[in-house]
Structures are given as structure tokens and as C-alpha cells.
């Protein structure tokens, strides 16, 4: 772990017990987040992006179990910490924005009170001053007429406003790490841009590190300095954004780039990724879980999974990565 890291996840493995067997949802997930940095976790649904976040936050479903690994946040291993210790970190130093703001907010409590709750619990604000500060938080996230809105309920607000309230709650205690789990899914593109700006502005103002979880590679490429690509519970590639987008080394990343609509000049250029995620309940999962879909499969792939460093801060889990100057059709911006 380097000195500047805020969070250092190493070898994280998670299993879920289900009636039809153990689902090995995460296997040896490793990444770290530096101070003030924004990284993106990108992958298809079921790739383990959200499970990683839940494991770090200690809010895994009771059926889930961390079988291996550590997540060092400063001196604390979040995966081994006592619930009491964790409760002191969560919400105060690490906080999270959830996917659907409408269901994540308490429907029968005014939003101002919900923010005040966090301020009192984590922000060391006296209960008397909390409502006033809650209004200030609402103003800071750009809600007009915050004093009136503070006494409103989530159902009275649009999706974009609910997400602003979520952000206000998450940032109330001035955390040093924010996990944003698909914060703009279900919002319009115009609202998405505003919400993402808001998160980015707070991050730069406060030097806050952000883990941004998304399935949209184009959005990730615009917002993150580094992208971690996940597939079926594995980290397949971890690289600085520009390297990853223009020079992907893992075959899966390359397919993902080619499948991003914005990268294609016309529909025929848009590539689909053949096959689908392997069933994670299987006991005979190959070491590389992409190998069964992979066009560049070699004999080594069924024996072990390497983690190769192919450049500065560029790690690929592949025996046969794409060559550096693979011609990649990219019509950036296209206009």
C-alpha cells in the first residue's frame, strides 16, 4: 500500500450461499484508490461491481460472506473490523450514494430531517443547529428554495432532486471517500450531466476520493482518471482512462470499447460481445472466467490467471493480451 492511498482493496473474494449452490461472486479483486482520485468500476450487470462496494461498506446481504482479502482504509481493515468500529467509519469517512434515490431515501421522513440525522450522528453538529445546516446542505447541492424543500418528502421531488438529496446526505459528514453506485441510472442525460458535475465539484473542493460504479464506459471515460474493468467477479484490467480507452489490452475491454455506441461511426461498426457471463455457481469455473468467450484463448488460460503489469499502472489479467498497437477503430466524438 502506497502512502497516498485512501483505500487499498486486496484479494477480495465474496461468496453467496444459495439453494442452488455457492455463487463465487468476487474472486481476488484488487484495486486501490488514491487521495482525491476518481476511479470507475465498469462492467456488465452481474460482474460484481456493486458487490465489491457492498463488501467494502460491510453491507453485504446476509447470504454473502467475505472469504478472503482485505480492504485497508487508513489503518483499518474494513473487512475485519468490528461492527462498532465500522459504524464509526461508515457515513463519516466513507459514504455511499445508491442507485435508486427514491427507494434509498426514507419515504416517510422529511428530507431535511434525514440530512440532519446524519449531521447529528456523524457530523458532530448539535441537534439544535442540525436543521439549519441541513438547509445549507440542500442549498449546496443546488436545490432551489431549500428552506421549503427541507420539510418536503421524497415523493414530492423529481428523480434528479432526490439524487441531490442523497448526495447531500452522503456528503454531510465530509467523507474522504465516496462510493457512487450507478448514481445516474434512471435519470435523464441532462440531469445526469448536472449530477455528475455536482459530485465532481465536491470531490475537487474537498479532495475527496470517489469510486464511481457504472456500466457506461463512455460516462466512466469522461469522469474517472482510472478505470477498473470487471468481468464475472474478476478485475480483468486496471489502467489510466486514456490508455484503457485507446489502447485496451484485455480482449474483454477491447470488446467493451467496441460495443460502446459513441465509439462507433455507424451501426455496423458496433460490435456485440459474443457469449454471456459464465454461471458463477459452477464448480469447474476456469481460472480465467472470460476464457470461454475469448477469441484469444491459449492453453495457459485453463491453468491459471496471471496479473501482468503491461505499463505504468496498467494491469491486465490475461496470458495473451492484445499487442500495444492493435488497430482499434475509434471515431472519437464522431462529429
Amino acid at each position, binding site marked *: 500500500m502506497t502512502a497516498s492511498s485512501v483505500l487499498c482493496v486486496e484479494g477480495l473474494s465474496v461468496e453467496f450461499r444459495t439453494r442452488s449452490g455457492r455463487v463465487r461472486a468476487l474472486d481476488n479483486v484488487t484495486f486501490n484508490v488514491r487521495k482525491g482520485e476518481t476511479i470507475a468500476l465498469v462492467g*456488465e450487470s452481474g460482474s460484481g461491481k456493486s458487490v465489491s462496494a457492498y463488501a467494502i461498506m460491510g453491507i453485504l446481504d446476509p447470504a454473502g460472506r467475505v472469504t478472503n482479502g482485505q480492504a485497508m482504509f487508513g489503518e483499518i481493515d474494513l473487512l475485519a473490523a468490528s461492527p462498532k468500529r465500522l459504524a464509526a467509519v461508515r457515513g463519516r469517512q466513507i459514504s455511499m450514494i445508491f442507485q435508486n434515490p427514491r427507494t434509498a431515501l426514507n419515504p416517510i421522513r422529511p428530507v431535511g430531517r434525514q440530512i440532519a440525522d446524519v449531521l447529528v450522528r456523524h457530523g458532530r453538529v448539535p441537534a439544535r443547529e442540525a436543521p439549519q445546516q441541513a438547509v445549507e446542505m440542500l442549498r449546496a447541492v443546488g436545490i432551489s428554495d431549500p428552506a421549503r424543500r427541507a420539510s418536503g418528502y421524497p415523493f414530492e421531488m423529481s428523480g434528479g432532486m432526490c439524487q441531490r438529496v442523497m448526495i447531500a446526505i452522503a456528503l454531510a459528514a465530509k467523507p474522504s471517500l465516496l462510493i457512487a453506485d450507478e448514481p445516474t441510472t434512471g435519470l*435523464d442525460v*441532462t440531469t445526469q450531466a448536472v449530477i455528475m458535475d455536482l459530485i465532481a465539484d465536491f470531490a475537487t473542493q474537498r479532495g475527496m476520493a470517489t469510486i464511481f460504479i457504472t456500466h457506461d464506459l463512455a460516462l466512466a471515460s469522461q469522469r474517472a482518471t482510472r478505470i477498473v474493468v470487471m468481468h464475472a467477479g474478476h478485475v480483468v484490467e486496471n489502467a489510466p482512462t486514456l490508455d484503457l480507452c485507446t489502447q485496451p489490452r484485455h480482449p474483454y475491454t477491447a470488446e467493451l470499447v467496441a460495443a460502446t*455506441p459513441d465509439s462507433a461511426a455507424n451501426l455496423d461498426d458496433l460490435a456485440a460481445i459474443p457469449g454471456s457471463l459464465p454461471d458463477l455457481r459452477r464448480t469447474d469455473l476456469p481460472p480465467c472466467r472470460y476464457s470461454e468467450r475469448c477469441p484469444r484463448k491459449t492453453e495457459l488460460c485453463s491453468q491459471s490467471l496471471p496479473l501482468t503489469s503491461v505499463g505504468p499502472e496498467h494491469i491486465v489479467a490475461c496470458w495473451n493480451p492484445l499487442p500495444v498497437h492493435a488497430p482499434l477503430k475509434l471515431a472519437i466524438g464522431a462529429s
Partner: protein
Amino acid sequence: MTVLLDVDHVSKFFPVGSGPNQLARLKRRLSGGAEKLPKVYAVDNVSLVINKGETVGLVGESGCGKSTLVRALTRLIDVSGGSIKLGGRELALKPARVFARDRDRARIQMVFQDAGDSINPRFTAFDAIADPLRRLRNIRGKTLKERVEAVAGQCGLPSVLLSRFPHQLSGGQRARVGIARAIATEPDLLVLDEPTAALDVSVQAVILQLLQRLRRELGMSYLFVSHDLSLVRLLCDHVMVMYLGKIVESGPARAVFERPWHPYTQALVAAVPRFAGAAAERLRLRGEPRSPIDPDPNVCRFYGRCPIGASDCKTKAPVLRRIGCRHVACHFAEEFVVQRVGPVHAAQANRQI
């Protein structure tokens, strides 16, 4: 090109029933006084034309009325006013319940947003595809089986999957069932309501390419509703941008996305995440949309969020005007034409009228 669907000044208003003075309203009604309920202007005087074989995109944010418009065009709901002509035949006057058994019902079909939610969970894939054929084409027995298998094959759905229920199919397969069901009756117009919104990016491309192939093979017209502009750019010839019940800009898809003229379209295009950090303009919309309930007819719908917001905008609502090969509803559209493409090109565009 021949016109397939001609929609003229279609409106759909929904009365807003409840409110704080419900009791007062009830009293008034009991005393025999006429009362006017406030209305949501979901679709307000929209005209559009879809030519044969054309793909038209409809974009706009949630709540702008695109789904209501589409439901009115597919005659799932009744319109409040205006005319809808399919191949010259007026459809708007028929009540939706009667139209369900109309001979033209089979000519307009729809692919719904989430195939998982829109297929009867107690129907097998076969039944789902066979249902419209039975009801609208009155096909039975062996012919039905052959037709269903043929359509499924066209949509890349192996016939072994036809006996499965929706929950036994993957997202991509369900999307194929939804498409197969819609094209089974060989419609002329296929309305696609965010057909890939529920799909992963890995499957999305296959479904889009399937749709494009089907359109070429069967010569259908598409109305493609989406909020994903990068998909509309790839799939559509023509695009319409909707804002609060009105069309604010329409024109050739590529031109509109490359040089949007209406301020709302500009904000929409600027908000689309571009790949690999290509520099995006930081044009952002402030605040929330205006209320769609009984909007002031003299104020531009976009006023309040619009970066221009001049005094004219709140005294006179802009009408959709023709500029070159496009239509724009903004008082200041010409300034963008000049500013963005240069006066020479603007003059050329004007000559094309």
C-alpha cells in the same frame, strides 16, 4: 417517398382530478355549474410524418410526453384532438377499444420497453408470438406453427426456446421474443419504445443490428423512442426532439446532433457522455422543467431553464418554424444557424426550402 403515417396537430390532455379544493369542486358540480378541470398537456399540437421505410427517432427527457405520443399513435389510447392517418386512412376518430379489432391494428405494432415485463409470464415464447397472429390474422393450426417458427427464426430465436416461459429466457432472448411478436403480423410501422434500455451493452449491439436487418428485409418504418442519443444517431434517418409536450426541433438525425439549433437540443447533445474524454461543452440546464398543468400559452415551454431566456420568450411562445431542412421552435434559432455554421452555409440552407 410515400407517406406512411401522417400525424396532424395531435394533442392528448389528462384532466387532473384531485386537488386541495376538491370539496369546493364537488359542491359546484352538484349545484349544476360547469367546471373546468386543470389539465396536463402531455402532448400538445404535435404534427409529424413518417415515410415508408424511414426510421424516425423521438428523443426527450422523462415526462416530456414521448410515451403518451407513442401510445396515441399506436392507438392504445384515445387522443384529445388532431388526426392520425395511416396510408391515408383516418384512425384518430376510432375509439382505442374498437381499434383493437380493426383491420389496421396489425399494421402498427409496438416493441415495449422491457420485454421481461411486457410478455405475459404465463405464456410460452410460442404463445407470445402466436397471440397477435391468432387474434389479428386469424391463423390457426399448422400454418400458425410454421409462421411462428419462421418469425422466430428471422429474429434469431432457435425453435427449441419457443416452449420456454419468459423467466427461463435471458434478457437478449426476451428482447427477441418481443420483437418477433411485434413483426409477426407484418406491420408497416413498428414503434420501438427504448428496446435496449433493459439490456447490457454486450447484447445491445446484436439487437440493434437485428432491428436494422429486419427493417431492410421487411421494408418497415420505425419510430424509435429513446433517451440515448448515441443510439438514435446510429439508427435513425430523422430525429424529433420533444420537450414538455411539444416538438422543439426536428430534422435529419446527423445534422441535428452535429449542429443542434434549439437551446434544449444543444444542452441534450452536450450532456451525452462522449467516449475517451473527447472535450464536451459544459452547457448545463438549470432547475426543473415548468409544470405541464395548464401551461401559459404565451410563454415558451423552455423558459426558465433556457440559457437565452430573453424577454420575448415569456410573452410569445415560439412556433415550430422551418429553417432549411429542419424545424425549430425558438425565436433565436437563426442566430445559432449563423453562429454555428457560418452565414454562407445558412444562406445555402435557406435556398433548399
